[in-house]
């Protein structure tokens, strides 16, 4: 066997071993490397009240309630299998809205409600012009956010 072929086989084996190790590590880190719990994962994980956690999912349509004080909102985060009530006091990002993804940073209280200190909006992979955006992704009527059309109107 020529040294060139020996080196090729050696390098090939090393690369396979490295990639294998990387894949195994990634799979093992599936939970630890996740940025947030989905509502069903959070339920399964039995997170103790008061423990810092991050919860992510879709804001359920029709679930956003603005309280009388004007700064506290309640809504439901869902992943289709489980739904968690969330309370947040503060200003939400522009892209926060019903039927859209959101991530809440905070903790569970004793009653099973998630109390968020911070809300992040998630954007999905879809990009479309405003007029198209109205049709398939209807924001469920009364949203908290401006959609593209009203934003344009303001400009």
């Amino acid at each position, binding site marked *: 066997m020529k040294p060139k072929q020996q080196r090729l086989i050696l390098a090939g084996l090393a690369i396979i071993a490295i990639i294998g190790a990387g894949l195994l590590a990634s799979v093992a880190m599936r939970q630890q490397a*996740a940025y947030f719990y989905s509502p069903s994962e959070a339920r399964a994980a039995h997170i103790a009240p008061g423990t810092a956690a991050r919860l992510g999912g879709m804001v359920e349509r029709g679930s956003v309630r603005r309280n009388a004080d004007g700064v506290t909102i309640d809504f439901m985060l869902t992943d289709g299998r489980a739904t968690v009530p969330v309370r947040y006091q503060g200003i939400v990002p522009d892209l926060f809205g019903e039927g859209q993804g959101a991530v809440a940073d905070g903790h569970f209280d004793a009653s099973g409600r998630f109390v968020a200190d911070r809300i992040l*909006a998630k954007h999905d992979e879809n990009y479309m012009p405003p007029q198209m955006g109205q049709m398939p992704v209807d924001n469920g009527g009364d949203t908290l956010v401006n959609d593209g059309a009203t934003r344009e109107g303001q400009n």
Partner: protein
Amino acid sequence: MHRFANPQRFLSIARPLTPWLVGLGILLVLAGGYAGLFITPPDARQGDSARILYVHVPAAWLGMAGWGSISIAALMQLVWRHPLAGLAARAAAMPGALFTAICLATGSIWGRPTWGTWWEWDGRLTSMLVLLFLYLGFIAFTNMDGDKGAISRPAAIYALVGAVNLPIINRSVVWWNSLHQPSSITIGKSAIAPELLWPLGLTFLGFSMLFAAIVLMRMRRFLADARNNARLRRMATEF
């Protein structure tokens, strides 16, 4: 591949190719940038901030493609002892790091109005930051090798090991719950509406050409340096 092992033959191709790549690349980037800023409609939900994708996506691609080429070049040097492979790996490190940094910066600027945060330790963002650190490590590594054409064997192995990060970056949004959205463009289909998509093709191609031009220019510079140093050494022994 060894047809290009001769530096003279490589130069005879690289020299005339460089100005074409630079010229066309700048033209395409300007055209795509203009179209992306003034011609395409804003995104339905993000408004005008979505326009940053015409820089962000090519930068992400080149950051990853740069490391891909570095690890292929490292393999070619380790296995086939290709004389120009080390030069190519070294030449691709700087622009690769640059585009990775551009990707991180544009993503952060977009993240503030969209997500409501400049930075989060999410799988995609973190693995991309690791890629930037890999580049910086590789640059430091190869700077120690002096002006020899080849990179050192540890640097080549480092380049190969670092390639593990590429599938992790790509899959990070699939394997783990992440703040970053999944890929908009997968083989054969795009979640970006055609009206918004087409300038991306221009900037994608344009930035890629500029990347290639930078790599070729840097390789030519390294070759010239090596020749210069050899000449100086020869002169020093003659006197």
